[in-house]
């Protein structure tokens, strides 16, 4: 739990401090093949439209970068989390989160990532990234997040 919290806080910091400058070189403190590496140098998440689980053009380029990164660090296993915004029922959003995670899973698998390296979990609307009842917060919460589990 603490580790997860750290990652969330950390990713929050990165997002804030890196706004505007996209290419950040790892620097000495980030371990290659780590979650931090994925967040900073690749992008750990893709976003979805309202009530949709289709991967957008932006999402595809993030996932293509994730594929390259996963091929580079072949010892890494991942869990793909599916999330939804707060504007749906808890149960429908659990199903929608599962569809989002699965779409990403299939995209990675079709590109050759072994399914033995991947898991999915849906959190529905239970774990928003950004708190707030605004369109901007909701658009950031409709996401899949790739997390390094090994």
């Amino acid at each position: 739990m603490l580790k997860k919290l750290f990652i969330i806080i950390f990713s929050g910091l990165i997002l804030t401090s890196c706004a505007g400058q996209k290419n950040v070189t790892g620097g000495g403190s980030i371990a290659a093949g780590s979650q931090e590496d994925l967040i900073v140098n690749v992008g750990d998440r893709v976003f979805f439209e309202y009530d949709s689980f289709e991967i957008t053009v932006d999402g595809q380029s993030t996932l293509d970068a994730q594929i390259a990164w996963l091929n580079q660090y072949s010892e890494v296993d991942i869990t793909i989390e599916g999330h939804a915004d707060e504007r749906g029922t808890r149960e429908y959003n659990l199903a929608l989160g599962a569809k989002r995670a699965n779409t990403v899973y299939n995209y990675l698998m079709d590109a050759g990532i072994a399914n033995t390296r991947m898991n999915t979990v849906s959190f529905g609307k239970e774990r928003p990234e950004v708190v707030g009842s605004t369109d901007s917060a909701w658009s950031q919460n409709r996401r899949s997040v790739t997390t390094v589990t090994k």
Partner: protein
Amino acid sequence: MLCYFLQIMKKQFSLILFAIFFSSNVFAALEVTISQGKVEPTPIAITDFFGSSDKAIKGGETLREIISNNLSNSGLFYTVDEDLYIQSDNLVDKIPRFEDWKIIKAQFLLSGDVKYSNNTYTVRIRLYDVFAGQEIKAVKMSIPNLELIRRLGHKISDLVYERITGERGYFDTRIVYISEVGPLNQRVKRLAIMDQDGHPNSHQFLTNGKNLVLTPRFAPNNQTITYMEYENNIPRVYIYNLKTGVREIVGDFPGMTFAPRFSPDSQKIVMSFSDPKTANTEIYLMDLNTRTIERLTNDPGIDTSPSFSPDGKKIVFNSDRAGYPQLYIMDANGKNIKRISRGKGVYGNPVWSPRGDQIAFTKLTQKLFHIGIMDITGLNERVVVKDFSLESPAWSPNGRYLIYHRQNRSKEDGTGGQTSIHFIDITGFNERKIQTPRDGSDPAWSPLL
């Protein structure tokens, strides 16, 4: 005098009920029909519950307070202010001076007394129709200890409510819900249970908050709760035994199971399973005795939130097979699927009423969540309450009320977003917050105990 002896033995509680007298006089019940609008509350006077000792007096005060609160909270009664009472006698063994009660406009009069001896509290109550000038109910009940005093108060409330309204009561019931605390992106959620009135003395946590838990629902036999829990990040449906506190996983599914509800006979659970290979969410039925699993739906869309009709023959559910979430009804074997929701908006959370004739649901339209009810045909859709965020409607066992939760808007600084549980008459009147020690969501109502 007609004598009855009635004994109710529950495994958990032994509440012995002596009904010593029922009037055989014809009596016009207060007309309560759900189609009508706001009901003017009926004035009832409740005398002191006289006690033979300090313990008995204290018990009587507690009972009077529970009964008075229950009846007022129903929206169908209000308790006439005690300061107005002219007659101050114990009216259990004495015919009231009805004129004294008419003058203060009490339509009904409840009197009671309590005796405490040999570790037993014995309560007698007598209910009068003031304008008819006659007794309409007299009951004697005993409890072996003070821990049962709240249940006794609820039982008496049910008797009064049932005698006057002609409907089933709902006071001797419990609510299971999710207690919430902490920042909105790391909410700690615990299963919790309380009496229907949310009284703090009745409140109890059932899980410790380590795992995320969601959507608890009572078994109709009141022995267990089914809910969803994330154990090691694997979300699955569980059953929690209320007597033993033991929890058990439901079925051996290779992926997420969620949205569970019991069948009316408590022998089956209907729920959603999301296949990890396809992420397709379908509705499944599991027999808890034979452990056999039956798939009920088969569609590329999301099929979730199933809820049985009280006769067990049909299931209402939520599906986006037509492009966006709508409500459908099917036979309990998955056949004869028909769409019932017709209005504009995103429908969800359908729940079949205990009377069998209506569906409660949520609908998102014009940026607001509505809790509404419709006939099982989908006709006569009515809004009960609307707000920024409303969810999880649950019926009272008598089908007259709903409970649900509301969530406030949150701000990007992390404030707001509080969740709370509310009660409302299905006519849309008498909305009331049910107090909980922390935030509360996903409420579900037990059957009448």
